[in-house]
């Protein structure tokens, strides 16, 4: 057996650079609003993301109501339905999940977990948030423009995205969407560079890369990927803006729209799809990798056991990150691209399954012979594994090119991606909030409300999306305002749709209770103390809870061990914090 807990860097080198003085805020405004403290920025990011996420949630209700009870809400016409789909999808993926994982958890946890006082470029970090907020405002503004927001689908495929028969195509909707995305990418880049440089340069003494908690590895790798992937989205948006506003034809071939020849010609709609998915597939992992990292730490802490196969977990994250740049066209098997690409992309896609499966095994093996505390973070982690495995496995259908042919663009796809990149990461977010809320606020979230929230959300989401696969298998296409009369959809599918909608409404309502819990516990939650979960990582070892500006008081912590010394044989406690010196546990000699 090889020991990963000590890696030969046990000698603590003297500080390479002097501890730097932070910017000191002088007023309420610079402390809480235009703050440069990563922790405040994190909370700003999180609150904004949750607020806009609520909009997406309400939109999902409206769509589900239309699918189960067509026409019952007369204001949902086809235009609105497509607008709702588009805004729901885009908000969930970009403005909620990406922003919350990287801007929210990234900002809060990276400096604390690596033992830094703050991000390395605090001012750019602040700008990053304000640009994100601007992007959200522009996005929301499109609801109030003539014609409303774009209804092009979250994939924004041209030519229809900028033509008159798509809601917002010849009005403001698509323009504001593209502008908002462009602003988002600029803002993200400022934050993203910060996260990367902080992880590479801001670690405290003794915190080697192979001692980083997996949370940091997940967020770090996702950020690197985002910095490489978002430019593709950025240029695609700029080019489409030109097509829409300046009459260029990057993505626009010759087109006859409702009997009229348009003044476009020669462009390639497929080129947009390549650009979009070159961003879009890594985006799936930009959301997934932070979730992988966080859930690893939750499982380890709450099972009181070291994460199994730490180095394998790190490499799996890095390999998944790298491979996810060569699988994008699995979203395009039936797009009309050169069919021979199918061989390549099916192979790469299924190869990714191997490191991904290893992660699942290692989570499960961490539980094995653990000491499992069924706390809320642990419950959400278990729920994550179930949904993620389910959604990951249906990915093997859609990745395996020929099996994708009947399923693509059906509700099967909708069920698959909700399971794997909708529900699974959201469950991790919930687990993470229950886990770190005590550090952020000093108080525990209410347990009873949490339990109710957990059970409704987990079981409800499974009941929504598991049967939905079969709606797609029957043949119901996605993005259908209504399926209407067909010869192949039996009437019972309608009953299933009603069931799914009812559950979706209940699950949505449970989220309101969660939000209430977040607010209620601020005042009424049980006092948490500094380290309620008895965890090893540095953020739990701060001198104050909640940590103050600068995080560490006079002296930066020094790291002596990896992040997973739980239940070390011979140790008095069942955890040894990373900043605690000593040779207890598995020393290098003992396993040599």
């Amino acid at each position, binding site marked *: 057996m090889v020991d990963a807990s000590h890696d030969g860097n046990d000698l603590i080198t003297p500080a390479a650079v002097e501890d730097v003085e932070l910017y000191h805020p002088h007023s309420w405004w610079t402390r809480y609003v235009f703050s440069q403290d990563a922790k405040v920025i994190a909370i700003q990011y999180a609150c904004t993301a949750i607020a806009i996420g609520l909009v997406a949630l309400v939109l999902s209700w409206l769509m589900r109501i239309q699918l189960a009870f067509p026409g019952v809400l007369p204001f949902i016409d086809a235009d609105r339905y497509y607008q709702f789909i588009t805004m729901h999808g885009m908000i969930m993926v970009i403005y909620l999940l990406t922003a919350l994982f990287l801007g929210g958890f990234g900002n809060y946890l990276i400096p604390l977990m690596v033992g830094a006082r703050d991000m390395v470029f605090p001012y750019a970090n602040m700008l990053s948030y304000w640009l994100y907020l601007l992007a959200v405002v522009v996005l929301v503004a499109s609801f109030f423009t003539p014609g409303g927001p774009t209804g092009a689908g979250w994939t924004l495929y041209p030519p229809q995205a900028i033509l008159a028969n798509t809601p917002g*195509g010849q009005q403001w909707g698509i323009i504001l969407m593209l502008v908002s995305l462009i602003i988002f990418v600029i803002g993200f880049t400022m934050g993203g560079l910060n996260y990367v440089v902080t992880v590479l340069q801001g670690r405290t003494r003794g915190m080697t890369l192979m001692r980083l908690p997996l949370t940091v590895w997940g967020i770090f790798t996702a950020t690197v990927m985002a910095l490489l992937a978002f430019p593709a989205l950025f240029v695609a948006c700029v080019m489409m803006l030109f097509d829409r506003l300046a009459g260029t034809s990057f993505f626009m071939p010759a087109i006859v729209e409702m009997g009229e020849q348009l003044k476009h010609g020669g462009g390639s709609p497929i080129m947009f799809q390549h650009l979009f998915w070159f961003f879009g597939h890594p985006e799936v992992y930009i959301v997934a990798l932070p979730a992988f990292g966080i859930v690893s730490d939750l499982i380890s802490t709450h099972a009181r056991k070291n994460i199994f196969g730490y180095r394998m977990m790190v490499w799996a994250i890095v390999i998944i990150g790298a491979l996810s740049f060569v699988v994008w066209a699995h979203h395009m098997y039936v797009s009309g691209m050169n069919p021979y690409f199918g061989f390549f992309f099916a192979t790469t896609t299924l190869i990714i399954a*191997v490191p991904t499966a290893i992660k699942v095994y290692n989570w499960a093996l961490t539980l094995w*012979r*653990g000491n499992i505390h*069924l706390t809320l973070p642990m419950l959400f982690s278990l729920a994550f594994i179930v949904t993620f495995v389910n959604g990951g496995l249906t990915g093997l259908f859609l990745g*395996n090119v020929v*099996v994708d042919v009947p399923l693509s663009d059906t509700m099967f796809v909708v069920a698959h991606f909700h399971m794997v990149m909708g529900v699974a990461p959201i469950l991790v977010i919930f687990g993470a909030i229950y886990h770190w809320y005590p550090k952020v606020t000093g108080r525990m979230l209410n347990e009873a409300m949490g339990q109710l929230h957990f059970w409704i959300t987990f079981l409800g989401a499974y009941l929504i999306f598991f049967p939905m696969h079969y709606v797609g298998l*029957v043949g119901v296409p996605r993005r259908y305002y209504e399926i209407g009369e067909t010869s192949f959809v039996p009437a*019972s599918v309608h009953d299933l749709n009603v069931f799914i909608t009812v559950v979706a409404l209940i699950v949505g309502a449970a989220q309101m209770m969660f939000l209430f819990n977040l607010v209620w516990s601020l005042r009424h939650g049980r006092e948490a103390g500094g380290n309620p979960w008895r965890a090893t990582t540095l953020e739990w070892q701060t001198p104050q809870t909640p940590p103050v500006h600068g995080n560490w008081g006079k002296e930066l912590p020094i790291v002596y061990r990896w992040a997973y010394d739980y239940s070390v044989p011979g140790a008095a406690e069942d955890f040894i914090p990373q900043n605690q010196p000593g040779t207890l546990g598995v020393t290098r000699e003992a396993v040599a």
Partner: protein
Amino acid sequence: MAVVLVLVAIAVGSVLFHILSPWWWTPIASNWSYIDHTLVITFWITGAVFVAVVLFLAYCVWRFRHDPGRRAAYEPENRRLEGGLAAGTALGVVVMLAPGLFVWHQFITVPPGAAQVEVVGQQWLWSFRLPGADGKLGRAETRDVSPDNALGIDKADASALDDIVIEGGELHLPVGKPVKVLLRSIDVLHNFYVPEFRAKMDMIPGMVTYFWLTPTRTGTFDVLCAELCGVGHSVMRGTVVVDTEADYQVWLSEQPTFTQLQAQAEPEGLPVPAEMAQAPGER
């Protein structure tokens, strides 16, 4: 304990749902039963993995749940176990991928004698074109679309003149004959989707895409659009009828050629799809 029971219920319930629920694909009407087989193999492999993982979780929670005095084991790594699991997974992946790629190769390789039909999409109407007596489809381009030439057929191309043009009507196909379906769009992306055929492919303005199939039973099937194409996407429907050879010949002889259509061309403008006037949503 609730957690353990729920996990077991999820594993068992999902399998039972799969077996017992009435929702399954519509009976196939083409040669692509290979696709169905690959799909079924995938269902069983992935289903087994899912059940195994969830039951393993349930067991862990049941067996290693916290009680006072329990202490977790300390085992950072286990190279052999990790390597073995990775190898097993790789094997499972190969078992699924190999037949998948094999069938994909068939899917994109059109058999030599296949007949040709062209499907043209526009918002929100299906049109079709069959080669005439010469067995060849003439050239066509979006730039040539005009009020009396809805599919943009090149009048200068001799092989186009006898092409059979069906604007907004039904497509008929003879049973048992391989056919290459050429796909074209004159406005936005569409996708020609007949659930019973299993095959589908996007249609892209400015390009010709294709798939092929052999219809294996007669009948009337719905055509749906499976790529978002604007606000009328879900009402873009059509019909394919698979005929016996005799019925097919009767139908074929009743269809007008391009030349005949030109002769009776109406000058008013392009035929506007009926749905358009009452497209859902007021615009």
